């Protein structure tokens, strides 16, 4: 579980007034994406902002995770003329994107997606957008009701894998620079920053851990891997799940997609990829209507096994970063965290 590392490329601080000014300047000079209220909705989401006054500083987390900027809900893979494969054109991301306000769990989720898209075969679409982005993340100083980063090693303060991390210290933020990209941004706007200040990240972590209804990830992994989970749990979830897919669409680490060709009369022909969900009925159906993933319990298990076993095996980190989004959105009252704790407890007395 997380060890608080003190090794950063650079430590500094920034006053809250200066942070506001800095973001205001960045929003004019670059493409800034930050938590903001949408035009019609009250939900807070990552939106492009053109002035710091549009940014929401008092938020728990956004409804939709930032992954949509790297792996779009619906994105064009290439455009073509239907007659020739030689007409294919690909547009790579080239404009720099600066993110402000990404929470540690979502930074961790991006770290996982980076590993996933980098392993063969490489996904140029995702990686080209990532290469153009720099993230200023903000550590959490209080845990929300539904999240559980301390159990999966992804917060509330990051120890590595960030570009620039801000940690609230009253009137100032402690600033940690953790990557080359972060350093470049820092150096470009150096005048806004002050001398390093002390924050006790370890204490923050312990405080958060104590307040969280956590679980022992290793035990959950063992239970799932050895298939010792009470079948009634899967039956219960299968009964509640309406296959709406929201829990997966809003998950910062989910990456499944489908591919659709869009041919329009105006000659804009696009091969698109769009978010897809393993909890949709047709996800695994094959030619002839046969579906190898039946009954529904098998479908349900997949999310648990994939995130809490397979991705730990493959990437050495949990495929769930504890953001808690899927707990709150389910129409069938499926509570992921509660179910993980049931998995942890299953077979304890036998």
């Amino acid at each position, binding site marked *: 579980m997380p060890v608080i590392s003190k090794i950063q490329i650079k430590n500094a601080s920034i006053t809250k007034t200066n942070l506001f000014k800095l973001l205001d300047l960045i929003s004019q000079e670059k493409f800034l994406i930050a938590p903001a209220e949408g035009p019609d909705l009250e939900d807070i989401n990552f939106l492009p902002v053109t002035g710091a006054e549009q940014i929401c500083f008092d938020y728990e987390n956004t409804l939709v995770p930032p992954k949509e900027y790297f792996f779009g809900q619906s994105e064009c*893979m*290439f455009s*073509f*003329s*239907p*007659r*020739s*494969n*030689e007409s*294919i054109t*690909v547009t790579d991301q080239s404009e720099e994107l600066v993110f402000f306000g990404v929470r540690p769990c979502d930074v961790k989720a991006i770290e996982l997606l980076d590993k*996933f*898209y980098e*392993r*063969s*075969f*490489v*996904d*140029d*679409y995702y990686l080209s957008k990532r290469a153009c982005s720099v993230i200023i993340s903000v550590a959490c100083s209080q845990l929300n009701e539904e999240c559980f980063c301390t159990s999966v090693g992804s917060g509330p303060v990051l120890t590595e894998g960030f570009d620039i991390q801000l940690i609230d210290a009253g009137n100032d933020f402690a600033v940690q620079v953790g990557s080359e990209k972060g350093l470049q941004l820092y150096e470009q706007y150096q005048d806004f920053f002050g001398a390093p200040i002390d924050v006790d990240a370890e204490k923050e972590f312990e405080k958060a851990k104590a307040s969280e209804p956590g679980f022992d990830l290793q035990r959950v992994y063992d239970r799932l891997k050895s298939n010792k989970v009470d079948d009634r749990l899967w039956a219960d979830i299968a009964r509640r799940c309406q296959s709406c897919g929201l829990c997966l669409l809003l998950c910062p680490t989910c*990456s*499944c*997609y*489908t*591919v*659709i*060709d869009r*041919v329009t009369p105006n000659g804009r*022909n696009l*091969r698109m*990829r769009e978010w*897809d969900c*393993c909890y949709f009925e047709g*996800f*695994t*159906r*094959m*030619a*002839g209507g*046969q579906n*190898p*993933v039946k009954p529904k319990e098998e479908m349900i298990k*997949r999310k648990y*096994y*994939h995130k809490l*076993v*397979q991705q730990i*095996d493959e990437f050495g980190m949990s495929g769930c970063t504890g953001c808690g989004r899927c707990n709150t959105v389910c129409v069938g009252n499926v509570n992921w965290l509660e179910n993980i704790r049931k998995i942890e407890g299953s077979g304890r007395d036998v």
Partner: protein
Amino acid sequence: MFNSRTYIPRATIIQDIEDLTYDTRLFRLKFKGLGDCDNSSESDYEPGQFVQVSVLGMGEAPISICSSPKDKGFFELCVRNTGGVTGAMQKLEKGDEIGVRGPYGNNFAIEKATGRDCAFIAGGIGLAPLRSVIKYVTAKRADYGKLAILYGARTKEDIVFADELSQWAQIESVEVHLTIDEPQEAWTGRTGVVTTLIGEISDMSEGKCFVCGPPIMIHFTIKELLDAGWTEENIIMTLERHMKCGVGKCGHCYIGDKYVCTDGPVFTYSQINALEVEV
């Protein structure tokens, strides 16, 4: 790789089309603009691998390469009409273009069968991926023991590669057995499902057996093979899954802890058991 960027299909020209049945066609493809195409070196694909075929405007479908790596200057796909992409391919003509990316997936690991008897059991269009490996082993006949091909089709009209089946039967110590599901007029051969042929290879149970066909056929074939004394390790099959990307990204083919498109589609039956997949 045929294509240089992960998701971008490479243009190929249809050199030839053969209608194998009323709904299945054999396409001979050549890469566009590169003379005799550059898959001239044998190592470019292995028997058992597949490509993502792209009909721009319709989409993509995974199709096994059914020619042998020993065929130079072209490669072949055998495609059965089941829907959008495969349906659109029925309308294509010689000289038309289709996109291809790959080759993807693992392979039949045919080198492990060197010196041993090999049986091939196919149902319907399942003969297509096996054809690649059958052509490969018959071209290097001396490296293997006895060969047997058991093939079952629903009706005589559904038989694919009929000419080649009789050619293979002419090769020394290659047995070919054919059956169709129900008796039919003008059919003098055997009838019954393909599993009824397994008795013909009872003396080969120390060898390797390659199985390919629809799920129900695979299910019963494996049962009979196990009863006849084949080990799980020596039964080699392909798993068919819905696939969108072929490169371990879209998630559609994920099962147990494997991506069928990159970890498969070829598995031994013992691996399938470990995945807890019903076959």
